[in-house]
């Protein structure tokens, strides 16, 4: 476990990193970034909290089973979103420009960037973001869990 200063800073930064990561995931269809990048940023937050506190102390806080579940759910949601457009083709963007959820019509040109656009892309971004944060987080957990036993 690190000193109290590091722990306080880490628990403060953890929140900011999580907010920033989910911002990148949610605005994947408007700004540079997306599911992979945002998920990696969130996994950085998990790594920070694991380094600042010891692995044993956060067992009830960041659970490995939670992360593996997040990874599986993310991948499943991604595939299901892909299959949902099977009426036309696999990965067909049937929600775009439809007026439904994320279906605001967009024309070619400059616009301020509405979040309610792009059809299935935000859903896929969220699914991939959840998957990447679970995957990278669980890799960090695995390494830290088994590093001590090998030593």
């Amino acid at each position, binding site marked *: 476990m690190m000193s109290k200063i590091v722990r306080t800073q880490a628990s403060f930064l953890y929140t900011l990193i999580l907010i920033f990561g989910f911002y990148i995931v949610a605005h994947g269809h408007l700004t540079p970034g997306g599911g992979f990048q945002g998920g990696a940023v969130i996994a950085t937050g998990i790594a920070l909290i694991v380094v600042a506190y010891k692995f044993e102390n956060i067992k009830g806080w960041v659970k490995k089973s939670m992360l593996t579940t997040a990874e599986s759910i993310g991948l499943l949601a991604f595939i299901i979103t892909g299959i949902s457009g099977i009426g036309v083709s696999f990965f067909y963007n049937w929600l775009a420009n439809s007026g439904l959820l*994320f279906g605001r019509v967009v024309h070619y040109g400059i616009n301020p960037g509405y979040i309610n656009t792009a059809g299935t892309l935000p859903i896929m971004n969220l699914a991939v973001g959840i998957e990447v944060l679970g995957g990278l987080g669980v890799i960090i957990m695995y390494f830290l869990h088994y590093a001590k036993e090998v030593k």
Partner: protein
Amino acid sequence: MRNALLAISLLIVFASLLYVAINPGDFGAATGEHLVFGEPKYSDMDDYFIHNGQNQTGANNIVTSIVFDYRGFDTLGEASVLFTAVLGTGVALRLLRRDRK
């Protein structure tokens, strides 16, 4: 000796890359086309994505519309690669622990 050989071969590769970067040359000379490095002759696909991507997918970020819509199958493969990497890490480390016991 090995290090010296390694350094020399790296230098040769670096020098040739540097030469190409400074003096791009004429790529299409053999076929009679004049192609310049950094100025592609055929850009139909880029133009299509740039002009139609926003209308068709509704996303301002063309990169995301390509990665998740036009080439969604590719992204599915990437996500599966990550899943497989996690699976492999878990299995390898678990085997390692069983050997220790």
